[in-house]
């Protein structure tokens, strides 16, 4: 992280606090940064709903997102490879994917509740739906758009089918795959919070926490919950960037771009 990355957040928080202190915004509609911090402390100490503390909410949400994302990745990446590398497979599978893809994961919530109830499985299913399509699609595009010249050169040098997959298609598609994973994780995260709004059996989850804070009209805790989600998203994003660095993507196949 560079120093300049901190500039805008600090500036924004400063201006926001100033606007609140000067009374430019009503404190019952927007909590000040200090108020949000106090709300954050309340979430950690007394919890929301009372007795259910913030770490528990984070843990439950992360657990749901991890499994949903893992399922989406372990199904989406192979499917993307399959459809990206083989035009006939693409013609076979893509219409189905293009049919299901525009259906918002949240539209599945009523079905999910009937099939899986209001608990863990339901949330995992919704996250899976949110994460699967960007992963599958980006993998497919990544594989399909590897420059033909590389393939021809590899063939000229007598590369086997396995070599072409391992040394040309996979490295060539990796940046796109990682983009898919990042998008998938982001969308999965969004759908999770919305899915938890319906209610969760164990009474834990960041979305659930925000909803109950809303029930009590605790704007400070609602905003603190949003900030927590943002920070976790940021941490995940940076970890993924590090992971991409481990794959030496920067050297081999294009640079990781932090957006």
């Amino acid at each position, binding site marked *: 992280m560079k120093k*300049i990355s901190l*500039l*805008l957040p600090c*500036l*924004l928080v400063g*201006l*926001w606090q100033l*606007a609140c202190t000067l009374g*430019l*915004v*009503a404190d*019952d*509609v*927007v909590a000040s940064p200090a108020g949000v911090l106090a709300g954050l402390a309340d979430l950690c100490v*007394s919890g929301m*709903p*009372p*007795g259910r503390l913030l770490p528990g909410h984070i843990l439950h949400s992360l657990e749901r997102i991890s499994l949903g994302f893992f399922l989406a990745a372990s199904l989406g990446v192979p499917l993307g490879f399959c459809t990206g590398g083989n035009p006939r497979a693409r013609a076979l599978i893509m219409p189905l994917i293009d049919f299901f893809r525009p259906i918002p994961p949240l539209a599945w919530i009523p079905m999910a*509740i*009937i099939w899986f*109830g*209001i*608990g863990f499985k339901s949330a995992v299913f919704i996250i899976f739906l949110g994460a699967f399509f960007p992963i599958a699609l980006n993998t497919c595009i990544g594989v399909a758009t590897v420059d033909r010249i590389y393939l021809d050169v590899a063939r000229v040098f007598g590369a086997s089918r396995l070599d072409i997959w391992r040394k040309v298609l996979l490295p060539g598609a990796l940046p796109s795959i990682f983009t898919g994973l990042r998008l998938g994780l982001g969308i999965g995260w969004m759908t999770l919070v919305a899915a938890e709004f*319906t*209610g*969760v*059996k*164990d*009474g834990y989850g960041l979305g*659930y926490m925000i*909803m*109950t804070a*809303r*029930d*009590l*009209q*605790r*704007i400070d805790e609602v905003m603190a919950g949003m900030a927590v989600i943002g920070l976790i998203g940021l941490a995940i994003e940076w970890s993924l960037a590090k992971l991409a660095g481990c794959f030496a993507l920067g050297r081999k196949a294009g640079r990781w771009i932090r957006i």
Partner: protein
Amino acid sequence: MRALSRSIALGLAAAGLCALAALPALTAPDAPGAPGARGAAPVRLAYLQNDLHHLALWLALDKGFFRDEGVEVTVAGVFRAGSEVAGALGAGQLDMAYLGEAPATIAAARGTAHIRVVAQVNTEGSALVVNKTSAINAVKDLRGKTVAVPGLSSVQDVLLRKALAEGGLAPGEVNVIVLGAPEMTPALRAGQIDAFVAWEPYPSRASASGAGRVLCASADIWPRHPCCVLAADKAFLAARPAEAAAVARAHARATVYINEHPDEAAAVAAKYTGASLAEAALAIGRVRYDAAVNVAGEREYLRLLAQLGFIEIKDQERFLDDFLGAAAGVSGAR
């Protein structure tokens, strides 16, 4: 490069400042009495989806009671939780709305909605429902069980906590979760929750479908407890008092009509909730439709909500005057 990033940062900062300057305009509620709106715009009302307590509104709409009183109304929203209704009132999207007394009190106490109670809508009319086959036969059997309520600090939540306390259960001994009312019966049937507290017609429907059994009616927990209210935005009340009074009159007339013509009311209830006529009639019998504001009831809500740590009110009498003021005076309940 440095110069470039500096200019980008400055540009973004300027954009941020502009956004902040625009914030007050964005967060300011739409003025209900704004010029042009006066007299011309219909009164924007809202109710809770499938909440039989709000039958008076449906009846007044269907029977044309609002028109009879010379006021134009429009349904500007159908919500799933009282806190959502309160949010819409606070954002200036509604002029008047039907919602639970507890969420209305919370929003008024926390200042997120500047509202005042215009009339009572009903008392009683909720129930604690358990799985039909469960061994739960008394509130004290709920120890260690999972019970769903439609919202934290909803009327049903307050009722449950009152029942648990009276059943000798400490707050931590029962797992209380928030769940949308439509999801409750399926969750009960699937064994994911052991009980729920909901407004009618959900308890009646759960019994009728064989999924649930009413353990106790809210009347057993707190006889004649105030439930839903008709609340109005204070700015709207100040700008268009005659229309607010007309809506309250139509509401009072519809309330009397329900009690005098239960069969006709059941037909309207069936239309708005999708329940069968028999179910609707059964459910209506479990709700008391009463337009008189009950000050003692609101006092009890304040006590319970403060005890739960949900609100903190310094001057209770002043709050009561402000929140119920004229309505309490009109109904003579004081």
